[in-house]
């Protein structure tokens, strides 16, 4: 099959996908009391999708992706705290800051592989967390950013405790970013990323300059992570150090492996499962939560390394598969 036709077939919306996005509207009707949780899930799913772009498609194993999330969150939060609470521009500001830092750090990150890459992303994460901690006068340090007040969306919809605006806002952002990501991965650029993931040295030989492509996708992923962070700051009206922390980076990696890497929906499914489980087990002692997450992680890696979606994909008969 000709590559362009194959790509075109990938981009067709399947019934399951349309069903999924329509189902995302259900919480408004069926679970109106859970809308704040739903918006949190949407934000986390967005973050997971951004990590999938670099981890699942480009093969950059990053344990420090939360840096961009945190930068987006702090930027939007600081903007709102110091008088400009307009949500959409705040979102763009957060995304811009994260994009810039993503580009600058990406210059370093894309040039290393394996252990050095792991260590550099980990190191960048800790550097950012330490920096945010020391700049306590600006960031609020360990207490977090307080006094954020976000204006009404479009001047009409208020961010209140009921969560209607929060969920609609987050879901819209998630859908938009998802559309962009989908377009990105089902394109020759996206294919070249997968090529780079499989064999980085060979790609330049067939015309795809590895470092430049990786830098592009890394910057884009940082932008999306920044959007997720800004959303968090605006919907919860608080920002803390843990938005930058290792915990957040590790959690999102867990969600991705749970749902399945390299399939955009994997991050979303993983986020849904993880957040719902955490909400249900919230009253559990934190030690036990980490025990079970650890066991789950080990079990998934041993028995279901392609994640939930990978496992489900194996159940679909060969002739119906598109990938």
């Amino acid at each position, binding site marked *: 099959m000709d590559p362009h036709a194959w790509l075109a077939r990938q981009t067709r919306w399947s019934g399951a996908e349309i069903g999924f996005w329509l189902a995302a509207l259900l919480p408004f009707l069926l679970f109106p009391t859970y809308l704040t949780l739903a918006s949190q899930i949407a934000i986390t799913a967005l973050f997971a999708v951004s990590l999938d772009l670099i981890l699942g498609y480009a093969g950059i*194993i990053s344990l420090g992706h939360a840096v961009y999330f945190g930068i987006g969150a702090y930027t939007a939060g600081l903007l709102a705290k110091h008088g400009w609470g307009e949500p959409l521009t705040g979102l763009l500001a957060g995304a811009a800051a994260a994009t810039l830092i993503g580009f600058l750090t990406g210059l370093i990150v894309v040039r290393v*592989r394996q*252990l050095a890459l792991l260590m*550099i992303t980990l190191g960048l994460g800790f*550097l950012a967390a330490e920096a945010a901690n020391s700049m306590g006068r600006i960031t609020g340090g360990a207490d977090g950013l307080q006094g954020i007040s976000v204006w009404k969306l479009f001047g009409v919809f208020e961010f209140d405790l009921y969560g209607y605006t929060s969920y609609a806002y987050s879901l819209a952002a998630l859908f938009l970013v998802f559309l962009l990501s989908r377009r990105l991965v089902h394109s020759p650029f996206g294919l070249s990323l997968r090529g780079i993931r499989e064999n980085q040295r060979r790609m330049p030989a067939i015309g795809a300059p590895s470092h430049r492509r990786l830098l592009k996708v890394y910057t884009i992923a940082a932008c999306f992570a920044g959007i997720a962070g800004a959303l968090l700051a605006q919907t919860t009206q608080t920002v803390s150090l843990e938005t930058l922390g290792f915990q957040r980076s590790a959690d999102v990696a867990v969600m991705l492996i749970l749902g399945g890497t390299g399939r955009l929906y994997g991050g979303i499914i993983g986020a849904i499962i993880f957040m719902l489980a955490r909400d249900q087990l919230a009253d559990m002692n934190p030690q036990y939560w980490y*025990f079970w997450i650890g066991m789950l992680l080990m079990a998934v890696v041993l028995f279901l390394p392609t994640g939930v979606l990978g496992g489900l994909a194996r159940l679909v008969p060969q002739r119906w598969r598109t990938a």
Partner: protein
Amino acid sequence: MISQIVGVLFDGLAYGMLLFLLSVGLSVTLGLMNFTNLAHGSFAMLGGYVTVTLMRGAGWPFLLTLPVAFVAAAVASVAFERTLFRRLYRATELNQVLFTIGLVFVMAAAAAYVFGTVTQPMKVPDYLQGSVRVWGINFAVYRLFLIGIALVITVLLVGALEMTRFGAQVRAAVDNQRMAKGLGIDVDTVFAITFALGSGLAGLGGALAIEIVGLDPSFGFQYLVYVLIVVAVGGLGSIGGSFAAAILLGVSDVAGKYYVPQVGAFLIYAIMVGLLFFRPAGLFGKR
């Protein structure tokens, strides 16, 4: 002034020696099998808890608990290696990382469940407390003890690596695993023994660390980060590299926290990122 610098260097050296004990095992096994074992710090934690339990529960003297900590960590690591880790040798690095992180979570939670989240109190024997005064500077006895043990172990390790047949097999397998297998070296057994030794050393390091940095369930993760920095900076598979990197890190950390406390922890991460960018294989690494 001089005494201050010497004091800081001494403390940094002691801390570096501790980091070396904790890291050397990971460096060699990573270089040998390319298996990213992030649970290495948790074996150190295991050694620490074994020592605490024996001392408090059974009243054992401190020095006697050290070999037990070594053996316990070695045995535990072999158990994990035979049952779980060997299935992941061919897995992607991400899977190895996530699996071993899961193990870290589980072991930390288990430690918290059994021992609670408090820092474990421990009292070293009297002959290891206090300090000696040389040229007008105070040197803590425990730190001298630590440096002494670490140097003895380093000599033993280097001797074993350079002068025994087993050491030659390890070096061969690190350099080129396939060729080594082709020459008839049983790489699996070599790896299992090296893994056990490395984890045992980590356990020993964990036991020795209690007096210096304290022991609680987060030890496994906290020191994992430092260990990874030492391994990455020193280069995989290199004992000399780990030694140099551990000293560098120990002295930088102590000096940084002493002279520029606001920048403290920042410094090590910045050094690491910078170093790795220019030399991704580490100071002494081969790849």
